[in-house]
């Protein structure tokens, strides 16, 4: 498979995943688009050898998370466009939950998304975010404290 086909394949396979992750970390649809675009650009630049689909996804998520970090580092403002304005929550409960998640620090939002949505363990999240698993666990723990009222008992543990 040549690289343009491979890129198309990768875009089709992972663009939603990466966009959601970037959105969860950045909370700004425009910045999230930029982060995803830069991720794929990085892929074209590096052309890494990726073992399988899981490896591919983890690599792309890692680059996306790094791009998000860079964007957050230069961004000293609130998101220009509010996420919930672009993607409205279907009901009040969901809106409240999303507002609570968006109020978390970015590193906690990243850990929450990768754990609760993508299903990664703290070790895997640590590898993606470039943090120790213990740090990820502390982010998750603090996020859980903040979101406790939205979590059902069965979901609290890792």
């Amino acid at each position, binding site marked *: 498979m040549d690289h343009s086909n491979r890129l198309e394949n990768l875009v089709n396979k992972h663009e939603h995943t990466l966009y959601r992750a970037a959105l969860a970390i950045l909370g700004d649809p425009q910045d999230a688009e930029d982060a995803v675009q830069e991720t794929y650009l990085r892929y074209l630049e590096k052309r890494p050898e990726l073992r399988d689909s899981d490896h591919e996804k983890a690599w792309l998520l890692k680059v996306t998370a790094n791009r998000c*970090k860079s964007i957050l580092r230069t961004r*000293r403002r609130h998101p220009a466009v509010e996420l919930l304005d672009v993607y409205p929550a279907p009901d009040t409960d*969901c809106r409240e*939950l999303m507002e609570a998640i968006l109020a978390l620090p970015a590193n906690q939002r990243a850990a929450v998304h990768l754990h*609760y949505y993508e299903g990664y363990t703290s070790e895997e999240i640590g590898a993606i975010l*470039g943090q120790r698993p213990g740090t990820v666990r502390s982010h998750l723990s*603090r996020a859980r404290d903040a979101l406790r009222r939205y979590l059902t008992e069965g979901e609290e543990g890792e």
Partner: protein
Amino acid sequence: MKKYKEYMDSVKAPDTLHRRLRELKAPKKKPASWTRYGSMAAALALVCGLGGFLAWTGDVNSRTSPIPSYPIGHQESAAEITDASQPDIAIVEPGDVTEPGEKTLGGYDVTGGGVTAHYILPYIEYGDTYGAAETVMDWDIPAGAVKRELTRDEIAALMGGEDAVDTHLDWGGYELTGWAAWYEDGSFWGAYLYGCRGPLDHFEFAVTAGQLPPTCVAYANSVTQEIRGLTVTADGYDGKGGCGRRISFMKDDYGYRFDLTATDTEQAELLVSRLVRRVADKGLELSAVGAAQADGSYTCSVCGRTVQEGAEHVHSNTFIGVGEPCYEDGGASTEPYDPAASGEICGLPLADDPIWRETRAPSPPAQCQSEPPTLRVLCSEGSADGRSSNYEWTYTDTARGEGGSVIACGLHPLDYRDAPSLTTADETVRLNFLDLPDRVSVVCWPDSQWGNTSAASQAAQAGHGEHAYDLTLNEGGWVYEISAQWDDLGRAAYVFHLTKT
């Protein structure tokens, strides 16, 4: 979190993004490094030509006060400026572009006493920050160190005076703040400066004695190069809204780090180059920042409050996140601490540990303390106490009506060169906690790996005794990270350097 999943499932990458992604093309390869200097060479030709023209037309200054010729690495002084006698023609020589340390970014002129001196700025190559980033450590001022804020005048004096700040560093437009810290014995630990002239234009500059200043992230693609006799590590990124440039180096047993965010890449690189040139040539005036406050008070390294000597300083809900500045969302107490009454604070007994009782003064029970208990390591030859600087801790202080959770992110064990140390012939050492943890695990690295934070650790054996844990030592010198877990209180990691002879 079902609702979160449902919400996220409903989010799709927009079509506009999909189209942008499908149209992406692989970026062209960077031009060979020498081509980047084509324009510089052209500019040089123009400068030389112009210089020749001025000389030919009889420009008075060019004949009576020629610009001095300073090789790269030269240290300027007012006297030298006045005594200068050679024309400045060495901005870019053919050999300049062959070695990274010899490249230049051009320079800047300083006029004084009717004489103009030209200072050459070194070119710095930056690695990108797109690759793997590793969390390595965070600011963690040593226990007992004293910290205080620096005034604007002190900052200027530290950097070599107002002239250095404005003319050589070009920091004139930045609002400067900072602090410095000293060890208990009064020796200099480090200083941190923050310059800001806008939301996207700011920098951090740090200097620490004996080691590079702590940082939260290390990038795999950083470029290390020789500049003006220094080994400089540099990396950076370019975004739509601005860029970041970061360098670090050691000079005269002091570590320096400069981390700049700017809207203009060219300006950013000039500022970094100016800083490197200045520090490489002149260093800092560390004596200008004096010492801790005379009355013995100090500024808390976490919340910034002034704490009187002898006063206990407790944080509620303090969180120091990796990669983030510390902030406080709870109150702080500066009430005098009375060890004699400490056992009654929560109405709970002290830990029933004979060794502890024999060798240590009473302390409040672990659940009353705002940080994890000290760990004492005992062997036949003696003992060493270690405090954790890497922990998550929940505490309750009913007497003060305070409580909270604390998370502290400390140095990587292999960067913790001041770790308590013991040398022993014993096979095992005793790990003696004030409050026995529910679980203990230990990893270690050979001490030949000091400073190599990417080195892989090995597991070590820690057996559970009745009142303590026993750690089995490896032969030789090893750095041990002892992680303790209290189910109700949190977890803490302790670092010791233990040598078995």
